[in-house]
């Protein structure tokens, strides 16, 4: 299925959980995840299954003012 992962179009196995997709993309902790603009707590990532066309955001610490 097709996903938008941090703004980029990607293709992944439709059976994968959000947790598995993030691992496959090599995400390095710490990070937090949103699916279609909604926060997904870390504890729910293994049981969350994205749908075709969904948007995934994986955010990490950066400088801020």
């Amino acid at each position, binding site marked *: 299925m097709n996903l938008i992962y941090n703004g980029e179009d990607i293709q992944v196995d439709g059976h994968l959980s959000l947790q598995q997709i993030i691992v496959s993309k090599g995400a390095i*902790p710490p990070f937090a995840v*949103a699916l279609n603009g909604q926060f997904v707590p870390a504890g729910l990532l293994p049981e969350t299954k994205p749908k075709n066309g969904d948007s995934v955001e994986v955010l*990490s*610490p*950066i*400088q*801020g*003012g």
Partner: protein
Amino acid sequence: MDKLTIYGERFDSRLLIGSALYPSPQIMQDAINSSGADIVTVSLRRQNSVAAGEDFWQLIKDTGLRVLPNTAGCHSVKEVVTLAQMCREVFQTDWIKLELIGDEYNLQPDPIGLLEATEILLKDGFKVLPYCTDDLVLCQRLAELGCEVLMPWGAPIGTGKGLINPYNLKTIRERLPEQTLIVDAGLGLPSHACQALELGYDAVLLNSAVAGAGDPVAMASAFAHAVTAGRMSYQAQAMPEKDVAAPSTPTMGMPFWHQN
């Protein structure tokens, strides 16, 4: 010097400092240390963006300071609420510097969306530090929602103009004596920070004024001194301003009196 209170927690420094725009990570660390700040602001961005990730986070953790995550760049209530929730998980804090931009030209906060987002986040257990305009009624509404800390701007972000409307800021201080008030954004000089503290503001939050200085480490120290001076001045209660000159040297016993 008396301590700064943020949602019941006490801090020695009245200067909150940002972690962005420094010439190098080392200068960032040195400037933050030089500022004497107890609190440093951070944010979240996509992991594939420049400088996002564990290296930066380790540098911040090495400072040992309390982090204040922001929601910079958000333009809607939905965005700002989601980013705040993501910040809470990553940074393990219920503090959030709530930043919701209403106008792209001057980065002015959206007062209407800010109220809505603040209410949502307070109910969700956040301790909200809203970045807002210097509008008295907006500040009153935010306080009524339950914000113990308010952060009106001194001037638009990154302008370095200082306090462009001291009257408004002073009025907010007078009308909201119980809130912790922090001037956030727009400062350029240590004298601006000193002026904010002299008005009775509890602290200042700044970033560009230090990071954009020729010597950020020295400027951070200058701001630390200015904040201390401003607070001491406020507590010492300045003399009343007068419109007419009044000699300070006694006129009694003045020589040559009436000789001409």
